[in-house]
């Protein structure tokens, strides 16, 4: 058993794998990537496609290195927005779910609006928000709108999935509402909350990007999405690709971090995080 196991990124846990199969699983996507990049470079060279139509991967990488000062600044801006939106979504979603759990009236009154907020495309809401809120706030609100719903619905599901016998046990021993919440409901809901956070992480990035594109204004505080739009206007396609690459990498890092956190928190007890020995 290697102790440095990658967290289960996919939900499916197959039969025990031999190390050869594991190696293939890691190697295959890398080979596909290498082949894709090679074909891309080849197509660009053979057809002599000009860089303002399609730059080769080499040119994209070059731009990434050369424009790093600009791009890294934008990356930080976007990541900060995402983080703020994510934190707001996490706390907002959990807090709202707890409120709903304590009061049915509140749930009946507000839940439909949470759904409406979720099903209305955020790109359509963003321009309105930008009218009424300062730009930075509007961008964070967008990230929050997209991210909070999965946290809310997952936490609600978790709070309602408490083992009935355990709930009976708590009643038998005269547990107060707060005690039941703290010692029973929240720990029971934890795997669900973490699942919601995992989805919210990626969605917060999407929300941030959507809002940045809608905002579309220049300045020191412009994020990666803005860089993409701006580079598009300037036909700086290589920089568009470079910014896209960074966004994608940011998304992957966010997902892996959240999956890893979830795995670390649950690994001692929850089915989803248990090893294959059972």
């Amino acid at each position, binding site marked *: 058993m290697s102790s440095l196991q990658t967290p289960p990124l996919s939900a499916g846990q197959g039969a025990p794998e031999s190390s050869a199969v594991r190696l293939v699983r890691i190697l295959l996507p890398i080979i596909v990537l290498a082949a894709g990049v090679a074909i891309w470079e080849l197509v660009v060279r053979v057809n002599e496609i000009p860089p303002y139509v399609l730059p080769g991967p080499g040119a994209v990488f070059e731009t990434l290195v050369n424009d790093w000062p600009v791009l890294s600044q934008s990356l930080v801006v976007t990541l900060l927005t995402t983080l703020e939106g994510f934190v707001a979504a996490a706390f907002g979603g959990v807090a709202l779910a707890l409120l709903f759990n304590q009061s049915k009236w509140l749930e009946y009154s507000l839940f439909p609006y949470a759904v409406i907020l979720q099903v209305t495309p955020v790109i359509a809401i963003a321009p309105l928000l930008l009218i009424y809120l300062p730009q930075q706030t509007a961008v964070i609100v967008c990230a929050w709108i997209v991210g909070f719903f999965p946290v809310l619905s997952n936490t609600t599901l978790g709070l309602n999935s408490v*083992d009935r*016998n*355990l709930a*009976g*046990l*708590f*009643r*038998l*021993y*005269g*547990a107060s509402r707060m*005690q039941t919440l703290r*010692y*029973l409901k929240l*720990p*029971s809901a*934890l795997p669900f909350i973490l699942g919601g956070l995992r989805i919210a992480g990626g969605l917060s990035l999407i929300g941030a990007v959507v809002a940045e594109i809608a905002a579309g204004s220049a300045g020191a505080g412009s994020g990666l999405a803005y860089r993409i739009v701006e580079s598009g206007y300037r036909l700086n396609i290589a920089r568009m690709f470079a910014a896209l690459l960074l966004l994608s990498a940011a998304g992957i890092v966010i997902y892996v971090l959240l999956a890893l956190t979830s795995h670390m928190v649950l690994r*001692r*007890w*929850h089915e989803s995080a*248990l090893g294959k020995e059972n």
Partner: protein
Amino acid sequence: MAEPAALSDVDTRTAGLAVSLRGVTKVYDSGVMALGPLDLDVRQGEFVSLLGPSGCGKSTALRLIAGLSAPTSGSVGISKPAGQAHPGHSIGFVFQEPTLMPWTSVRENVRLPLKLAQAPATEASARVAEALTLVGLTEFADAYPRELSGGMKMRVSLARALVTDPDILLMDEPFAALDEITRFRLNNDLLSLWRNLRKTVIFVTHSVFESVYLSQRVIVMTSRPGRISAEFRIDTTEPRGEDFRTSADYAGYCRKVSGALAPSHPGKPG
């Protein structure tokens, strides 16, 4: 005649009743009459089994005694010894499933009732350690429930029920899901705990053999609605052990109790 002496010893020491049900019925929201009317007295320190087929209301009766659900009519009386602040302390409940919190250790699971009662931490730790010793799980205190076998989980559940030092121990088919070897061992452990701690035990089971082996009194119930159809005193040499399990006495009681169960089988009206 050793056996009446052993029994009367219990009688004199604890004259009072621990549990007293009078005309108790339970009708579910669906309109199904689950129980009763039921009259039942359990003396303090007594070991009583409720025996019957599934759906005969024996678990319902237990949940009523525990206060986990309210009777539709009738009264449920539980003796509360003077000087006990928390009523929940006088009852320990062991469910059919171990019903442990999977996210925390054995020690914290056993500590739960004390934590909910906001007992002082040092006192609680001592009592948790004591309860774990009673069920022989001291060295597994830091394990998580999923790391334990079914029998061990049940022991944790038992330790948790005992940690508040309750007067009454309610057990709802606690060993039904275990293999026979484990069940026999837990039966013996439960008997010795009962002998040493002198709790009142009400034990729900659908096993004739288990009920006869464990209890001083077997109460046979019939279904729809759940009622008491027969009652048997199991008078035998105490303390019981594996000898009793293979004795003619035991086989005789089992035959008698099985005979009382038979009329309640489906196919025959009433």
